[in-house]
């Protein structure tokens, strides 16, 4: 999924200071100290760095960083969202020219850049000591085989965003399990044939996240040995439920991020979304008309009483290995992900990936007017702590996601079933992986 949303996070000032302190203490003793010292020297010396990102909250962060370090210029460039930027980055890296110093990369795309050694390992700067700073989901996503490839900027623990006005109007109870969710979808569509409980036209990010929550682990990656298996129990649990939604035409055939989608979210004809926590800020800014209608509940469970959620989206900042200003880039990256930049970004609506922020009472108890005064972050932060462990993305997930609609998407427009679609997706992903030199098994 290409998330065209503002998602952000901030690290805590405490963590930032702590990290600096650790780095400073170890100076002269370890490699990490030297690199961190280089970064400090680079800060003093000044210079220019180029940052490729589409996250709008980084604008204030870059401005603040420049104000604090007057001899540094940060060129923040938006070269496209998600896949568009990865293409540009991939091309720049291949050409060895015009490579940015810092790049925003979503979690699902990180392994693809890491495997080709396109990203600088941040361990020498002391990034490995930030383990407890971030929640486990995002932290697991940015490190691979002992290297830290990026630092998380935001995370997307999933929750149920629902239009309480529509739910009340039709007397629908907030579903706590997926079975109840299907039942609620029937109830709503029957009461109002123009309204749907949710929309879906085939979205790789959504599908993999639901499989993730159901306990499926279709991707197993160990270096260049990869296994793809969409037949495990978790996947089957997802397909049987979601197939019902498709068969009974209970999902609106509207693509996410389209104008129709925003219209549906605004007028109540799309009455709920199970989506990443960053949707909070996105609703506030992009669906102003529905202010007061929406509320947030925990993500529906596969078995009642189970406390497992999943992540949906989430971004990080990385330093391409070809950057010529890596030291300066680290200074900015640290400022934005664990330093003062975090507070700026949360204030602008980002959802953090840092533990201290998520546990901060001021953050959790904040009441949102848009959500009728609900302390939304309480629900979202709880979800962040319940994310299922051990999920891995393919080292060629960007490509795999690009053919999702060719394969699984057919289940939305023809007689193909989700299971068949996933089998084709698996087959084509395996073929591509083997073709690219990985050892891929089914």
């Amino acid at each position: 999924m290409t998330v065209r949303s503002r998602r952000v996070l901030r690290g805590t000032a405490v963590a930032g200071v702590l990290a600096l302190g650790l780095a400073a203490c170890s100076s002269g003793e370890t490699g990490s100290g030297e690199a961190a010292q280089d970064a400090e020297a680079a800060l003093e010396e000044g210079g220019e760095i180029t940052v490729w990102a589409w996250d709008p909250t980084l604008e204030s962060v870059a401005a603040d960083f420049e104000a604090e370090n007057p001899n540094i210029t940060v060129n923040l460039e938006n070269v496209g969202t998600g896949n568009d930027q990865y293409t540009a980055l991939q091309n720049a890296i291949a050409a060895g020219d015009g490579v940015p110093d810092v790049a925003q990369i979503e979690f699902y795309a990180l392994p693809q850049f890491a495997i080709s050694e396109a990203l600088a390992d941040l361990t020498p700067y002391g990034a490995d000591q930030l383990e407890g700073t971030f929640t486990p989901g995002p932290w697991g996503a940015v490190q691979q085989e002992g290297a830290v490839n990026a630092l998380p900027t935001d995370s997307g623990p999933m929750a149920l965003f629902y239009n309480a006005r529509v739910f009340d109007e039709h007397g629908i109870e907030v579903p706590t399990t997926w079975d109840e969710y299907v039942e609620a979808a029937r109830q709503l569509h029957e009461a109002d044939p123009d309204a749907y409980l949710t929309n879906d036209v085939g979205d790789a990010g959504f599908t993999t996240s639901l499989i993730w929550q159901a306990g499926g682990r279709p991707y197993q990656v160990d270096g260049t040995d990869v296994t793809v298996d969409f037949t495990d129990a978790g996947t089957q649990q997802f397909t049987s439920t979601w197939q019902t939604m498709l068969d009974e035409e209970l999902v609106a055939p509207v693509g996410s991020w389209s104008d129709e989608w925003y219209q549906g979210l605004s007028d109540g004809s799309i009455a709920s979304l199970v989506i990443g926590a960053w949707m909070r800020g996105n609703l506030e800014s992009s669906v102003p008309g529905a202010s007061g209608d929406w509320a947030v509940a925990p993500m529906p469970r596969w078995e009642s009483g189970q406390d497992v959620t999943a992540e949906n989206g989430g971004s990080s900042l990385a330093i391409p290995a070809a950057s010529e200003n890596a030291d300066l880039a680290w200074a900015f990256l640290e400022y934005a992900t664990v330093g003062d930049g975090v507070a700026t970004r949360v204030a602008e609506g980002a959802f953090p990936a840092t533990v201290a922020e998520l546990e901060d009472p001021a953050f959790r108890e904040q009441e949102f007017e848009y959500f009728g005064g609900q302390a939304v972050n309480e629900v979202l932060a709880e979800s962040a702590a319940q994310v299922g462990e051990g999920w891995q993305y393919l080292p060629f997930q960007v490509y795999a996601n690009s053919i999702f609609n060719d394969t699984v998407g057919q289940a939305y427009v023809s007689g193909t079933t989700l299971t068949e679609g996933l089998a084709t997706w698996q087959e084509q992903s395996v073929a591509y992986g083997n073709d690219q030199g990985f050892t891929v098994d089914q």
Partner: protein
Amino acid sequence: MFIGPFMLVFALVFLAPIAYSLYLSVFRTQMVGGTTFVGLDNYARALQDPQFWEGLSRVSLFLVVQVPIMLGIALLVALAIDSGRLYGKSFFRISIFMPYAVPAVVASLMWGFMYGTRFGLVGNINDTFGITLPNPLSPDLVLASIANIVTWEFVGYNMLIFYAALRVVPHSLYEAAEIDGASQWQVVRSIKIPAIRGALVIATIFSIIGSFQLFNEPSILQSLAPNAITTSFTPNLYAYSLSFSGQQYNYSATVAIIMGLITMVIAYVVQLRGMRKEA
């Protein structure tokens, strides 16, 4: 000596890209393992690639259905305007030519909105008349919907080619026909159409090339109908997806070269046939 500068520009602008594509197409770059020389492996793979052939047969179907319809309409309009029996002929000429001035991307977006079954024109018609029109963006109809857009865009362009050719037919021929008592239909069949055969052949060749290169319209509509328009919907779209999402630059270059060759061969055959009849 004077040909030097021309040859230099020619080599740089025309030969270099082709040479580079040929060079790319005999290598294979992997994420793991780097770049290796593979000879003609990419070509062998393309010839056995069902996705490539599916795309090719799709544009071929498009070619045999859409091009005759489009050229037929263009010819009819050109003859009607040329006949001089139409009131406000410059108004018609301009209005029919206008869509050609609309960029293909804008045209596709515009039609994409109209095709929408919820908030688009199709949706409005459904609501107003209480009927359910088939969804123009469903997998079965999407190719016809694209053909409709392309026809709308290019009827005016082809009409202008035909009309320009008709304007240079000597008037003495019409006068002679009138003296002989020929009907309008006979004039059209025996004078006008033979006189513009060259223009017909040219327009056909342009349309063949255009069909095989079908890209803008499906690429724009893809975001509205991601499941109906796959990443290998047309060979051009396939080459694009291979290169940009899959980083298979080498294979993408191979697909592009094969498509170029096929287009050249078919265009050449049409030209030969067209010329032979003329002789």
